[in-house]
């Protein structure tokens, strides 16, 4: 049975500039931050990022790695507006495909199901149609005749997600209250890299949680990265909550200063610096 374990840097080395990369989690919740930090250490740039945006988007935008963002929002949850995302938008740093939260979900589903689009009752009448002139509608062929948005598939070159546990083969498990959309990101992608708090034997997975917690199936996964504290400073319930003090520091420190202090070295250096800081 193939062993898919690799380091975060190895996973990122398989990405290329110009790719469309989906990032799991939601806002400032269970984001694959160790993989994002590895991405920031790499030369990979010019990305189309697809994300329910949080500090993943803020950091990549601040570092100038995003050519286009596909998102419904970017937030730090306890801090409603993501300051680095916001600054990047206000200086016109990247192109934006702004869609509704449900349109985003339907787009991921379409990609996972290999459909070109899915009809969704969202977007019509709103300026989502104005700012996305490429969006098309579709009319029901049945007697209701209703018109819907034909949400195009959000097909991804790669997906980056973080879960609580995984085995070496790529079976991923979430142990918190919400799976977010990480399985869909993996299914919508040509290659998916799953980081986890701890790699365990397959037999251990069902000891930590019921079979329903086995969110990600190994046939959708290319690489498994063991990354303890790998969602820091976002939340990763029940292993840890959001590091609010560190998030405030992230939100209030000028980006070059934050990057120099916390992101100049490897993941071990990050953890040491973050540990000293809080």
């Amino acid at each position: 049975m193939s062993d898919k374990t690799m380091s975060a840097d190895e996973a990122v080395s398989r990405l290329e500039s110009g790719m469309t990369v989906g990032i799991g989690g939601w806002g400032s919740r269970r984001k694959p931050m160790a993989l994002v930090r590895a991405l920031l250490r790499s030369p990979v740039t010019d990305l189309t990022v697809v994300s329910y945006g949080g500090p993943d988007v803020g950091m990549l935008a601040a570092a100038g790695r995003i050519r286009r963002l596909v998102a419904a929002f970017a937030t730090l949850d306890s801090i409603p507006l993501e300051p680095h995302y916001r600054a990047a938008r206000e200086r016109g740093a990247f192109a934006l495909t702004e869609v509704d939260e449900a349109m985003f979900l339907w787009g991921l589903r379409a990609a996972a199901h290999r459909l070109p689009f899915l009809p969704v009752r969202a977007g019509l009448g709103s300026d989502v149609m104005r700012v996305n002139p490429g969006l098309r509608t579709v009319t029901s062929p049945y007697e209701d005749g209703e018109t819907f948005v034909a949400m195009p598939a959000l097909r991804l070159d790669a997906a980056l997600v973080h879960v609580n546990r995984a085995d070496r083969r790529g079976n991923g498990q979430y142990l918190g209250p919400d799976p977010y959309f990480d399985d869909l990101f993996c299914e919508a992608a040509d290659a998916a890299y799953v980081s986890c708090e701890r790699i365990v034997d397959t037999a251990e997975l069902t000891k930590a949680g019921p079979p329903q917690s086995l969110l990600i199936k190994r046939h959708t996964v290319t690489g498994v990265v063991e990354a303890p504290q790998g969602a820091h400073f976002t939340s990763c319930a029940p292993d840890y909550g959001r590091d609010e003090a560190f998030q405030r520091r992230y939100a209030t420190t000028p980006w070059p200063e934050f990057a120099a202090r916390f992101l100049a070295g490897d993941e071990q250096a990050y953890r040491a610096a973050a540990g000293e800081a809080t």
Partner: protein
Amino acid sequence: MSAVTRAEYCVVACAEAWRGAGEILASPMGVIPSVGARLARRTFSPELLLTDGEALLVGVDGTVEGWLPYRLHLELVTGGRRHVMMGASQIDRFGNQNISCIGDWARPVRQLLGVRGAPVNTLNNPTSYWVPRHSRRVFVEKVDMVCGVGYDRAGGARHHRIPRVVSDLGVFDFATPDRSMRLASLHPGVSVGEVREATGFELAVPAEVPYTREPTAAELRLIREVIDPDGTRAREVAS
């Protein structure tokens, strides 16, 4: 009991949005709508479903009665059995709402949250709004980015409905022939002139404007002693 505060009138006005709603999910966003939804649940709308703000459906005492992660929440929206009360950075006279950005979308002066779920909400389930500081900056002639869809742009969409807008000055609805915004009630202590002064468009004002109803003694006790004993409502709307 001390005099009813403005924040408490706002709580009651928000709670009223869920009167008679039946067995649906109440999705309040913001402190005062949250207190209002809990008040409705504990009094006149006991069938409401409420979340813990994350992935769990909970009773008034916090007892978990169900699971509603984001993906199921979005699907529940499309099923329509929900009444959401969202915030609004801008809202116009037909109920178009903006939480995305201020200025030109291509290069905004101020980037805000993004459209979030406003487009899907407004086309699928009743959507009301809460504005803690009623001003001409919020109640504008034209919003910069239509996130929540108003009556003039909904094209008669089957499930589109904006039951009410609650602000710190009063309650508003769209019960006019052209579905433009109407002053439905004033919070005690507020005048029609004050509302007009703080509104950036021509508001429909009936000849007789009622006052927002008084909370009952039982409701006041629930708000002050049970639901919001720390008085967080006063941080959103001062007395």
